């Protein structure tokens, strides 16, 4: 202690202290920070197949090594989850230019998708494909999911996920036919206009709650036909078509009956 006390006025002491503080902060952060999800260790064979598929189907826009071009973003570090989302929903490979890439029948089968995902994941660390347990809505809390959905998702996707309009022809798609895995991946990777909801923003458990809330919607409405769950506009439309239509039809019928 004496030696330490003697040197504490040394002119390099502040520098040493600063370095120590940085080391501690960094160490604590490294220990406590959520670790970025790691891609599943995939076989090198998968990666090779993926690379070939990539060069045949994706390289035109994303560049031969997925480094990105002026047409399309770099895929280094997007992770397997992004690839699985885009390819399994058919959005990629993209069919044509438009306001946004639209979902369509998938072009790659499960195996090819997995190979592509493995290849892209090998380029840089990124979010991995969630496990079945992570996306199992039956283990989530629908009420909490409702609260989260209302605050984070409803402004674009409609209160119950019926979809909504964005600017210039872009849109937030309806979520009822989207698989739980894709919903989870979309939150994790933020495809296209969608923001990323990382695990610090919405925790994996909360993501599962949101999936539980969406699963609730499959049961329909206690009130009868949902009319698309689009709110007052579709209600008003049906009030005029069905309601006023039937009632005026009735009036014409009564009026036509001779007294």
């Amino acid at each position, binding site marked *: 202690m004496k030696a330490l006390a003697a040197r504490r006025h040394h002119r390099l002491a502040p520098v040493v202290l600063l370095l120590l503080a940085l080391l501690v902060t960094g160490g604590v952060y490294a220990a406590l920070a959520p670790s970025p999800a790691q891609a599943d260790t995939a076989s090198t064979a998968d990666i090779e197949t993926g690379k070939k598929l990539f060069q045949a189907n994706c390289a035109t826009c994303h560049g031969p090594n997925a480094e990105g071009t002026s047409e399309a973003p770099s895929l280094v570090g997007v992770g397997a989850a992004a690839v699985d989302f885009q390819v399994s929903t058919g959005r990629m490979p993209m069919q044509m230019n438009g306001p946004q890439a639209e979902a369509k029948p998938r072009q790659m089968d499960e195996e090819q998708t997995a190979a592509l995902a493995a290849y892209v994941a090998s380029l840089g660390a990124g979010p991995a494909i969630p496990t079945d347990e992570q996306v199992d809505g039956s283990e989530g809390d629908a009420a909490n999911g409702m609260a989260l959905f*209302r605050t984070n998702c*409803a402004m674009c996707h409609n209160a119950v996920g019926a979809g909504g309009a964005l600017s210039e022809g872009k849109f937030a798609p309806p979520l009822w036919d989207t698989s739980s895995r894709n919903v989870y991946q979309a939150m994790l990777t933020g495809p296209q206009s969608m923001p990323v909801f990382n695990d610090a923003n919405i925790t994996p458990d909360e993501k599962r709650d949101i999936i539980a809330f969406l699963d609730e919607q499959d049961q329909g409405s206690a*009130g009868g036909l949902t009319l698309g769950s689009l709110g007052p506009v579709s209600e008003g439309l049906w009030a005029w078509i069905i309601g006023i239509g039937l009632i005026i039809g009735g009036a014409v019928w009564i009026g036509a009956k001779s*007294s």
Partner: protein
Amino acid sequence: MSTTTTSPTAEPTTVIGKSADYLDQRTKIGVLTKQLVRKVFPDHWSFMLGEIALFSFVVLLISGVFLAMFFDPSMALTTHHGAPATMDGQLMSVAFSSTLDMSFEVRGGLLMRQIHHWSALIFVAGIVVHMMRVFFTGAFRKPRELNWLVGTLLMILSLAAGFSGYSLPDDVLSGNGLRITDGVIKSIPIIGSYLSYFVFGGEFPGEHIIPRLFTVHILLVPALILALIGVHLFLMVLNKHTQYPGGGRTDRNVVGYPAVPAFATKMGGNFFIIFGVLALMGGTMAINNVWNYGPYDPSPVSAGAQPDWYMLFLEGSLRLMPGQAEIVTWGDYTLSLNILVPAVIIPGLLFTFLFVYPFVEAKVTGDHREHHVLDRPRNVPARTGLGVAFLTAFVILALAGSNDLIATHFALSINTITWVFRILFFVGPVFAYWITKRICLGLQRKDRELVLHGHETGRIVRFANGEYIEVHRPLDEQERWLRVNYEARQPLAIEPATDSRGVKRKGYKKDKRWQKLSRFFYEDRVEPVTPAELAAAHAHGEHDELEPAHDTPELVSGSGTVEREH
């Protein structure tokens, strides 16, 4: 009516007869009943459109009483327990929680809520279709201008009823509506912020608005509506019902059936049809599932947030208005024209049109007579055109209020749609006016043509000299009466600018302005066929006339060239 007190010898024998007699001896109700029972009502399906509103209102009152038994209009916070699963354990207002309990715990509660809400939509829609019938047939003319005013007030009250009820459950969607209302109130210059604090009892949303709206919704507005419905129906009976033009119908008679049994039976039937349709809709079609939106919280706004259809034109008006109209004046005072114009001035203009139209039309027509026979819409092209222009503006605004749903459902860009509607809002009504007026004038010409030349029969006849003609069948009297018995109004004639001694006449400029408006209404017109023209057309047709053997003595030639329009 077996029991009247006019003949003392006829003693009632049945129980009903005896009790009616008992009542009549004490109230003289028999006189009134007799009058009402024998009152004649003209018969037409479009006269039942007002009943849609009336009977939906009855359904609204019945279902509303049921709902009021279970609703608790309090904004105090509570934690909800129970169905639906998505709301279990959430913090919400007592009002919202009681709406959920009413829907999921009370037997038949959700059905009642849905019937109530569908009835509200149909109530306003019924008022609108009824107003359309009244407007396009000119039923608002003297002596019914006052009743038109009462009706327009009822329409505005129905909007107030709908709006106040829509906001009660305290869900996110209706809260968004209240937030917009708050913004509109605050946009009123000078008094706006004070008024907002007054309405909400402090800063929005506060804790007072739901109880206040509850009082407005279940007491104030329904009472006013009931009272005005009374006035409306009383005036209808007093003025007598209008009738469509036709043989034997004049401004001095009413051709129809007595109230009992014919009219009352039809009315009763109509009630059950309307009640049935409303119950069917409430039972099968979900409406305003508030648990989809969740309890109100000022931060979230979901995609597709719109008001009920009758308020959609206000939403559209706000969506169309460019934000740049907000100006900061001297002294850093913000004048929110971007809200004031679309949410206060435009609806103000639309409602003003409805209120003043009957009086303006009477003035430009120079018409002080009573009218009990309705106009065929084609015979007053300017009015019909203005009505269609008004509806076009309303529909464009309502569509603009749904621009996001149009964008998603038709794969269009919401920005483009908004611009298209901005332009259409100005161009659409003008175009609609022009095309409607042209169609009306065209139909009138077609009527003239028919009256003068009769129906085409498709029968071609060749004369001995080789000439071919098509045989035309003349109109029967009823058909002809319908087509010639109207008045093609002319622009006002006004006194000259100076009198005989060259002195400028007071009020000339004002008269001139009215005359200008009158020209706008009546400059283009198609005169009805006069008896002289008809006679001339018949005479003209005579050289084509077939031999008597064909027994068509009143043949009218198709080759006639009688064109005396304008």
